[in-house]
């Protein structure tokens, strides 16, 4: 506790039209670290970020960002944060440079300071060449970089990135990752949301998994992986009946099932003894399992184990509630 926390939330609750989006979210982010809030669509990620960035009020609970209460000390918080949402917050009819200068002026820089800062950022984000063209002519990846640059104009100490790479191609995604990685170590705190496990794994010091409006797990990605199982044993069964038998036998112990490929994943510590015991248990007659492989657990496994569904198949029908707040 104490002043080492850049973000601290206790029991955040929020409902839209009687639909409960947040159901008691607790979070702590140490100053200078990167937290990834991981969850499927509709889990409440955007709602959480909006509350922490002072754009939405919680129905219940408290949050402090950069040391100030997000409701009662909103202005103080706003002076220390920046928010980059899912949709580029840029004016297409302004040039990249004009967009940055405008943000500079709005965050209180003088005309000359804003100009200098805009120049620096364009240089830093490799956008100097395009800087004098209107954003309407820019590619999606360039816009995203400019959007990130715009969020840094006022030198915030806490940066919120709401799904910074959703909808980007691989190259642009890597460019964003580079930017985020480049920011770490400078004392800035980064709070990002993502649906991508790989992204959380790569960028974040700590990962909090949000599901159904609650944080269901919180820790380093290593610790989370350990929490589920250090390793996973994948068994490839010989035929569908063998698959059914094995699935039946393992029941809830199977962390992954793929009937098409006749594959079942089981948690293991990776030791020869444990793997052998599992094989004997599933396949006493030595005919049902064709092949096996041992993998390190991925965040996918963690996600599946924690939420009961794979990460990459978000429940889109819950989608609406999370996107709603912006327009209400």
């Amino acid at each position, binding site marked *: 506790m104490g002043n080492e926390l850049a973000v601290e939330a206790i029991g955040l609750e929020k409902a839209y039209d009687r639909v409960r989006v947040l159901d008691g979210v607790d979070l702590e982010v140490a100053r200078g670290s990167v937290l990834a809030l991981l969850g499927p669509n509709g889990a409440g990620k955007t709602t959480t970020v909006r509350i922490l960035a002072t*754009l939405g*009020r919680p129905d219940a609970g408290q949050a402090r960002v*950069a*040391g100030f209460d997000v409701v009662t000390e909103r202005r103080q918080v*706003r*002076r220390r944060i920046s928010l980059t949402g899912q*949709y580029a917050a840029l004016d297409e009819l302004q040039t990249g440079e004009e967009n940055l200068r405008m943000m500079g002026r*709005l*965050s209180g820089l003088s005309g000359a300071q804003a100009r200098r800062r805009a120049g620096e950022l364009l240089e830093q984000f490799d956008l100097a060449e395009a800087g004098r063209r209107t954003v309407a002519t820019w590619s999606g990846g360039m816009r995203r970089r400019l959007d990130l640059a715009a969020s840094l104009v006022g030198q915030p100490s806490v940066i919120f990135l709401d799904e910074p790479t959703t909808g980007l191609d691989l190259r642009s995604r890597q460019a964003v990752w580079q930017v985020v990685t480049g920011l770490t170590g400078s004392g800035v705190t980064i709070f990002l949301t993502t649906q991508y496990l790989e992204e959380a794994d790569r960028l974040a010091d700590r990962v909090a998994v949000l599901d159904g409006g609650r944080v269901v797990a919180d820790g380093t990605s290593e610790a989370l992986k350990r929490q589920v199982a250090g390793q996973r044993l994948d068994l490839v069964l010989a035929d569908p009946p063998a698959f059914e038998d094995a699935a039946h036998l393992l029941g809830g112990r199977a962390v992954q099932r793929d009937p098409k490929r006749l594959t079942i994943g089981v948690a293991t510590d990776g030791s020869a003894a444990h793997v052998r015991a599992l094989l004997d248990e599933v396949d006493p007659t030595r005919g049902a399992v064709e092949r096996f492989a041992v993998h390190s657990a991925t965040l996918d496994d963690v996600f599946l184990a924690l939420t009961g569904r794979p990460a990459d198949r978000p429940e889109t029908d819950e989608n609406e509630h999370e996107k709603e707040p*912006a327009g209400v």
Partner: protein
Amino acid sequence: MSELTASPTAAPRLSLRPRPLAALAGAVTMSGRSLRMARRNVDVLLTSLLLPVLIMLLFVYLFGGAIETGTRYVTYVVPGVVLLSAGFGAATTAVRVTTDMTGGIIDRFRSLDVAGASVLAGHVAASVVRNLASTVLVFGVAFLIGFRPSAGPLDWLAAAGILVLFILAISWLSAAFGLLARSPEAAGGFSFLVMFLPYPSSAFVPIDTMPSWLQGFAANQPVTPVIETLRGLLLGLPLGSSPWKAVAWCLSILVASVAVSGVLFRRRTT
């Protein structure tokens, strides 16, 4: 948690400016933004400049011959056209406000602690500048086709004053409408409403030529006293009570719109 307050994460990147000063600075930046974007939006720019001129030419050359107003029609109609174009131009503020409110940028502005008043006032101020520019163009073309006002410098000043007040009122009103609309397309509808209002007024034909059931509305709707004031000032006609009525209408619309848009902005952003 209370320790946090005593030692914030980082030094504030700027001292807290007093609220009104910050809001004013924000509004200036925002109006610069709005004007820059208006200049680059070529289609809209051309429409807002050419449409009034075309409407004037249409009335003067097409309908003008058939309309009896007691003076040369160009002289009669110019104040009406000026008002029509100013109102139409001001009403496009709604589209700009809705575009901001429905895009991602409003969140960025708010997380930068830009006051809602600054965002709206920026659009309104830009609207005043844009529409004064198009008004100058309309007057320019009017002179070319034979408009000869008898106004002295003070009359011109007063006319400009009432025009600015009218543009200001309609711009704020459309800003409020822009906060209500759910999409820029819906907000665009407001322009047509405002554009229609000058027709049942003394803008294009004298009110006593209208059917009697319409005369009551035409004589008492807000646009009529504004037009009568403009016409009176430019042509040296008796003004009567028009200026007071015009100012009262504009101020009421302005005050009500500012108040309503304040409430709407807050409701829309929390």
